[in-house]
Structures are given as structure tokens and as C-alpha cells.
């Protein structure tokens, strides 16, 4: 896309200096058991967040779930019960406001998607606002990592202005990227009103490289993965539901995604974008991740991948 100068710096641009992963302290990841969406999730999420001492008091928190399409059966999108429980947990921790925002990639009728996932039934209070990131006001941000050929991207001002961005994907395999977790979920902040439905410019830039550029420019501060029921096979839309019974938390999205892969019986080092992210955005290596809560082995559930990704399966 063309030159883009900052029009204004009225919003906080979240672009941070990249620190090579080998210079980072070890990352913490918490795994909690959660058998279904009917159980009390708020206590599970609140207690897990306490482990991280997140600086959320009086801050604006943006929850970024994964809403990919109309989903009356609740198999492809982040479950609203998890979103609602996260909302309440961040408010209990002192957040001044909790926003929920996404920019679905395939269907521009975001309201219809919200209806199909029954978000309003779960998140009732009018103080929790949903922001359609596809049509939010935008600001241009240069991409400093240059993993892809993209030089800059427009991002929603709501994302750039939030104090804490929480990526909340569903635990899924992906037919082009191998897995779609908290890093890939950030594709949803790229506005459809600028790039279309789907955001095809990211595919042409190379999905793996675009994931790196987006997460370097607008790094999520925290990740909560809905792994209660995930998706295997031909994800992210046409796969098969797969119960895993887990919620995964962490302040290093790379470490969270690597742990999720291990939970799914996949090798994170062989997921191309995760391997690259492990050199600059966070930790993939198991010896650099401090595991809290449940052990991976206790909840490991082998997820099927399409044939093209046989190489990322952990044969062990």
C-alpha cells in the first residue's frame, strides 16, 4: 500500500522495540482444566489472571475474541461464556472499561455473527461495548519487522488506544497456517473496510510473515485461549469440534501458542510462523516457559491436521 504518514499521534501507538527472544526472561503460561462452558468460568479465569499481576487498574482493556463467521452451533468462534467471564474478571481486577472487539474476515455483517454466537445473552451489561474493528476509525502504522513485503498497515484506533489488548482465540488447526491461536487471531484487528472481506492482502504478503509483522507492530499484551472445545482438521471454519477441556493463559502470546500446540499434540518448532516468532517475539522453547497449573501431559489431546501439515504432528 502507499506511503502513510501518521496523521496524528492522538492515540497511543503500541509499536514497541523488539527484544530478541534470547534476551527475554522466561515466560509464564497457566493451564486450567475447564470441562465445559456451563461450569463457573469466572472464578477459573479470575484466579488465573491473579497469577500474572497484570497492571489493569483504571485501564481500558480490549478483549479480542476470534469471530470468524456465523456459528449457531458454537464450534468455530471463541465461546461467549469465556468472553463474559474474562470481562467480569478484568473488571474485578480494577479495569476502568472492558471493550470487546473483532473484525470478522469472511462476512461483513458483524451484527449477524454476534447474534449467531449469542454474545448479548452472555455479556449483558451496556457498559461492555462491542467494537466492530472492521469499521473503526483507523491509523496507519509502519511495519518495522518487514517479515512480509508490507511496509505499513492501517489499524483500528480502538486497538491502538487500548491499555491492554487480550487475544482470545479458540484452540484450532488451520488449513493454511497449521494452527490458529493468539498470534494468528490478531489478523482480526486488520480492518475489512480497508482491506476487504477476506483481508486478502495478508494472504498475498504470506500468512506466516504477515502474522509476524502484525504481532510485532501491535503485540497483544496477554492471551486467553478457549480450549474447552477446539477445532481439528480443516479449520478454521470447516473443521470438526474437538474437546480439550482447557483454558490457557499467558503474558507471552508466543509461549501460549507453543504450549497450545503441545496440548494439541503438535510441534510448535515446526509451525513456520511460530518458529520465527520464537526468535523475536517470545518463547517457543519448552525450557524457556514456566508451566503453571495443569501439566501439558495431563490434558494433551491429539488434534488432526490436514495432510499438508503432517510434518507438524508430534509422533510421540
Amino acid at each position, binding site marked *: *500500500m*502507499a*506511503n*502513510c*504518514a501518521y*496523521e496524528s499521534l492522538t492515540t497511543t501507538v503500541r509499536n514497541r522495540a523488539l527484544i530478541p527472544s534470547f534476551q527475554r526472561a522466561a515466560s509464564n503460561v497457566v493451564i486450567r482444566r475447564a470441562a465445559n462452558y456451563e461450569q463457573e468460568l469466572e472464578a477459573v479465569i479470575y484466579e488465573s489472571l491473579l497469577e500474572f499481576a497484570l497492571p489493569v487498574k483504571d485501564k481500558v482493556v480490549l478483549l479480542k475474541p476470534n469471530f470468524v463467521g*456465523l456459528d449457531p452451533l458454537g464450534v468455530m468462534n471463541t465461546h461467549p461464556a469465556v468472553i463474559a467471564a474474562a470481562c467480569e474478571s478484568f473488571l474485578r481486577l480494577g479495569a476502568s472499561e472492558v*471493550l470487546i472487539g473483532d473484525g470478522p474476515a*469472511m*462476512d*461483513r*455483517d*458483524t*451484527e*449477524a*455473527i*454476534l*447474534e*449467531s454466537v449469542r*454474545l*448479548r445473552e452472555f*455479556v*449483558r*451489561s*451496556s457498559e*461492555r*461495548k*462491542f*467494537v*466492530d474493528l472492521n*469499521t*473503526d*476509525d*483507523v491509523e*496507519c502504522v509502519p511495519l518495522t519487522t518487514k517479515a512480509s513485503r508490507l511496509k505499513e498497515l*492501517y489499524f483500528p484506533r*480502538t486497538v491502538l488506544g487500548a491499555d491492554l489488548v487480550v487475544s482470545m482465540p479458540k484452540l484450532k488447526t488451520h*488449513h493454511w497456517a497449521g494452527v490458529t491461536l493468539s498470534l494468528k487471531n490478531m489478523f482480526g484487528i486488520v480492518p475489512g*473496510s*480497508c*482491506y*476487504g*472481506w*477476506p483481508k*486478502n*492482502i495478508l*494472504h*498475498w504478503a504470506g500468512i506466516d510473515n504477515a502474522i509476524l509483522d502484525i504481532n510485532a507492530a501491535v503485540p497483544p499484551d496477554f492471551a486467553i485461549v478457549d480450549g474447552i472445545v477446539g477445532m481439528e482438521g*480443516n479449520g478454521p471454519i*470447516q473443521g470438526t469440534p474437538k474437546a480439550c477441556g482447557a483454558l490457557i493463559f499467558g503474558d507471552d502470546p508466543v509461549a501460549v501458542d507453543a504450549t497450545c500446540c503441545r496440548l494439541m499434540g503438535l510441534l510448535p518448532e515446526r509451525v513456520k510462523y511460530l518458529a520465527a516468532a520464537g526468535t523475536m517475539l517470545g518463547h517457543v522453547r519448552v525450557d524457556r516457559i514456566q508451566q503453571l497449573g495443569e501439566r501439558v501431559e495431563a490434558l494433551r489431546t491429539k488434534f488432526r491436521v*490436514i495432510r499438508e501439515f503432517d510434518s507438524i504432528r508430534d509422533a510421540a
Partner: protein
Amino acid sequence: MDIEPAEDLPGFPTGLTSDHSFPKGVCTPLLRDVQNSDGGWGFRSEGQSRVEPTCWSIKALTALAHADNADERIIRRGLDFLTRAQLADGSWSAAPGEKTGCWLTSLACWVLIAMGDEKYAKAVAAGLRWVCDDWPRDSTWWRRSIRKLSGAGRYAKQNDLYRGWAWTPGTSSWVEPTAFALLALENQDLVGGDLNAPAEKRRRLGEALLYDRMCPGGGWNCGNPEVYGVPGEALVIPTTWALLALRHHPDRRENKESLAWMENNFTKIRGQASYALARICLAVYDRQYEMRAANADDDRDSVRSVQVLAWMSLAAGNPRQWLTARTSL
């Protein structure tokens, strides 16, 4: 919970949800109130002026003005914003400050053409010329060869000889930008003699692409009728635009199947955007449909989106008229 951010459109009057009262009682006052000082409209109240909601606001107000002769000044200011937003190469971009044009060039041309005003002829000609020159990057000979050699063709069932339009330059053909380009190029006489033949060629390829990308059983999604052997599911919004762009072929099997899909799914529609566009589609094809009971909560949420408000207003009007008429204020 609210569907849009904190800023609500001001002054939503409850109880004005019947078809006749909506455009005049709700749409005009709200669109008037939320027009920005630069003449454009944002996707919501006080949002950045953007080309897309400005186009739809102009379209909706013009449809009303044609009946009532109302608020010409607002429309003129919107048109001024639109013409100022045109880039030097004739295209329109999607975001403030963006210097590369995109699919919105077709939409802007379509809106300006409908004004039937000679003063926009030059802008329209430049825009349509850009549309004719904007080839997608997929399905070039080189890309088709790579796809064939790599075996990637087995992932998605589609004929790569057809070429439509992309959302942004240098990417692949998709249903909605192709449909809007076809709508704009219905007026290819405005392009100029030297581009008549290329425009006609592109229309033929574009129509063929839309038919090729129809989902099994009718209707369209963004443009993936089948991936890894799994049929794609149609969606209301792309189906509407595809059927409007292909409305000159009402007797084709694909049109009939897709209209049947729309009719069968009409009562299941939840979002106001999809509902408004489905009504437009069925009205253009002269199909009867049963209006659903007005739900004030739904309306209140939806009118926070300026664009959806405009679509709702257009649905309540006469789609056959505003789809093609050249109106002068």
C-alpha cells in the same frame, strides 16, 4: 450490550420502525446530523469521513430527495467530499491519507454516475478507466502455471481463466468487488470510446467469474465455493451484490438457484445489514417477501452504523428505481 462503540447516533426516535416512516422519520434526520464538517460520513457518528459510508449516505439521501426534493445541500457537500477524495490516478482509497486506490473506485463511480450530472463526467471517466486497468494478480498466465505445477488447484475448485476484481490492487478476484465493478461498468459508455472494448471484455470475464464462484446450491460467499472438497456456505451480502450485478440474466439457472437460496434463507436472517440488502435483492427481482415484525432494539443497534442505516433506508425505498436511475438534484 451495545453493538457499536460509545458514540451513539443522536436522536434515535423510538417507534418509527414502519417501512414508510423509516426513511423520512429516521434516516434523513440522522444522516443530516452525523455528516461531518468536511461533507463526508464516517461508519458511525463522529467517525472519520470515509469513502464507503459517504457513498451510501449520498445514495440513500438521493433516493429520498428524488421523491421529496429534500436536503440538496447535504448531498452536494457529500459529493464535494467524494470528488475531493479522488486520487490523481482516478481511483478512490479506503482510508484517510491512503494513496492507493481500491474497490471503492467502482462504488464511487456508481454513485456519481447516478447523479446524472455532467460535472462529474470527467471524474467518472477517470475512475472507470482505473477500474478497467485494475487487473487482479491471481489468474495471470504465470500464476495459473504455478498453481498447476504446485497442485494448489486441488484445494479450491475454481476456473482460473476467469478474472474479476480484487479488494485491493495486486491481490485476487473476489465476489463483492467484482459485483461493484460490474455495476459501475454498466455505464461503460462514460469511459470513452477507446475503453469500450476492454470494458466489455472485463465485464464478460467478471460475469463468468461470478457464475464460476457460486456456491453449490446457489448463493455466494466471499468467493470460495469449495475448499478442500468442502462446499462453502453462501452469505446474504455477497449474494445480494452478485445477483444485482447479474440481474440482466434472470433466466439463468444460477440466478434462479441463488434467488431460491435467498428466499429460503430470508426468514433466518438476523443482522439488519443482511436483512436490508436481502430486501433490496428480492425487490429488484420482483419477489414477494414477508416483512418481519419491527424490533426496536434491533433497529436501535443497527442505526449506530451509518452504512447500515443507509441500506435500511434504501431497502424501504424503490430499489429498482435507485439501482439504475440517473438522478439530477
